[in-house]
């Protein structure tokens, strides 16, 4: 079962946010693979809202593309996945040392280019938890405009259960 938090009304806005350093407590990712800058609201078992700010100073923008700066859709997808991982772990329990999360599938639709100066907000929903499988979806906005929509699945597993890997 999804673990739901106490009613939102019982928590102050400060209790429903995570700064960049706090985000790293929930993710195994590290620079340059952390794509979200802040979690601005969350309710375990229900939803999470995160954001990323796009700067022309990002390495990705330097090469994507030199003639026309567009933030890569694949990076938006990674931000969606990381937001989902945090919501999943908040809704169940944090990863143990010998565990990791695995993305099973992502369906994405991109509706508007994201460019330097944009702040992308990800509204992530916990759709279903079945065993260790987590189904989640998201709509991403810049201002009031939808820039992308996603659906995905992820799970957690013991590292040992994956057998020998060449990492």
């Amino acid at each position, binding site marked *: 079962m999804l673990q739901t938090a106490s009613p939102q009304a019982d928590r102050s806005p400060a209790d429903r946010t995570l700064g960049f350093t706090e985000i790293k407590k929930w993710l195994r990712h590290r620079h340059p693979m952390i794509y979200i800058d802040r979690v601005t609201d969350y309710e375990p078992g229900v939803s999470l809202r995160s954001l990323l700010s796009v700067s022309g100073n990002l390495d990705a923008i330097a090469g994507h593309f030199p003639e026309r700066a567009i933030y890569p859709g694949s990076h938006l997808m990674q931000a969606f996945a990381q937001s989902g991982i945090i919501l999943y772990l908040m809704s169940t329990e944090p990863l143990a040392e010998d565990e990791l999360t*695995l993305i*099973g599938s992502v369906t994405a639709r991109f509706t508007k280019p994201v460019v330097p100066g944009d702040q992308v907000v990800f509204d992530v929903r916990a759709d*279903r938890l*079945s065993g*260790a*499988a987590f*189904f989640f979806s998201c709509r991403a906005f810049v201002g009031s405009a939808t820039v992308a929509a996603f659906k995905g*699945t992820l*799970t957690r597993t013991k590292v040992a259960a994956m057998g020998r890997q060449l990492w």
Partner: protein
Amino acid sequence: MNVLQTIKGILISDLLVDIPAERMEPGDSLRDAYGLDSLGYVEMRVCMEQTFGITIGDDDFSPVNFSTLGGVQALVERLLQDQETVG
């Protein structure tokens, strides 16, 4: 609705199984022939529910029903039949 053909379509389009529909057989193992892992089984369960408008309970989400293509087909057809009977 042709249940078997619809399931084959889902396996190809949603679960990205790389086997042509005409070569899929009811006795095919979802794990050995199509490469589904534990997460894949759960995704298939949800796809079946959404596509056919059925609910697959935890008791039916079992190795008996989800080992082979034909097992899933039989389960879906039974649940659709149950719906018609109740309806």
